[in-house]
């Protein structure tokens, strides 16, 4: 069930983003633009949170892996996207943002840093949960995220028509 839910969430966010992906300008330069982008773009933030919750539930080891794999992977994906605007799926919102904001690698650094912080905080939060009911709360949150993902999939399919 959990695995299926995760698959649904990931699949949803793999779909091409709509063309109206917003552009965040904080006025503080590209690094902060990148940070702001991640924190204000639910398409990117929510799956990252879901992954962090999941990793945290699996224990510190899984949490560490997610922490050190996800941001670099995101960054690499973004780099590829910068070179060629092909629709590699996962960091797609990031790419569309970068294409518009013209802030390039620095924006990606901002995104990766923010991602690192978000994943570290969220995963550690879950790892620290000892009481069973708190762990269940994290799982319930996961199920809600899956529900959101499913609805988003519906919006995307409807928008495509």
């Amino acid at each position: 069930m959990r695995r299926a839910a995760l698959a649904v969430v990931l699949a949803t966010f793999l779909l091409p983003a709509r063309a109206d992906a917003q552009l965040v300008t904080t006025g503080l330069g590209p690094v902060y633009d990148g940070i702001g982008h991640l924190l204000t773009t639910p398409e990117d933030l929510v799956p990252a949170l879901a992954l962090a919750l999941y990793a945290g539930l699996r224990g510190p080891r899984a949490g560490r892996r997610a922490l050190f794999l996800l941001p670099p992977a995101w960054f690499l994906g973004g780099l590829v996207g910068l070179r060629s605007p092909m629709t590699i799926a996962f960091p797609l919102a990031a790419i569309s943002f970068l294409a518009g904001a013209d802030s390039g690698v620095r924006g990606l650094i901002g995104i990766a840093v923010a991602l690192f912080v978000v994943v570290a905080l969220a995963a550690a939060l879950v790892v620290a949960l000892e009481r069973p009911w708190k762990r269940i709360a994290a799982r319930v949150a996961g199920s809600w995220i899956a529900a959101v993902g499913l609805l988003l999939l519906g919006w995307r399919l409807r928008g495509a028509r």
Partner: protein
Amino acid sequence: MRSRSFAQAALALIVLSLAATPACAHVERGQAAGFLAGLHHPISGLDHVLAMVSVGLWGAQLGPPAVWLLPVTFPMVMAIGGFIGLIGVPLPGVEVGIALSAILLGFVVAREARPPLGLAAALVGIFAIFHGHAHGTELPPGQSGLTYSIGFVIATGLLHVTGITIGLVHRWRAGRIAIRVAGGLVAASGLVFLWRAVA
């Protein structure tokens, strides 16, 4: 205690997803509006509210693991219902289904029925499809579907949490009776909804 966990999780979600919004508020107006609309929507119809609170009440009556399984099942299956609605598959008799859900859920709460867990989840799930189908497709124009969905799911979950919190009185005898009475009232109002849907 248990209900606090849900509230905390929900709060954490809200806070996390909104933490940075003020900094860039001028860009994100559409998103925030979508979120608020989604948050508001499930609360706006009494039939929905009663059905979802009943799910929480029933969960509290049944105790673990139903107390958290039902509130997980409902939003998930409701999302499936919303999905079906979004891709354009019609579902006949949505209003009747919603009214029926209020009647039946109120009835099981009033009876304090204890079917096998799977059956309970299936009952909740079937009705959740109707609720999702009715709601998921009603996005105000010009707002973000994603943030609408987030607000929508959170509001639904919080309604369950409300039901569970009310259900905490189940540990006392008077409380048990009060819950059953409340279930009866939900069932009665469900009859009214059904009357309106058919007539």
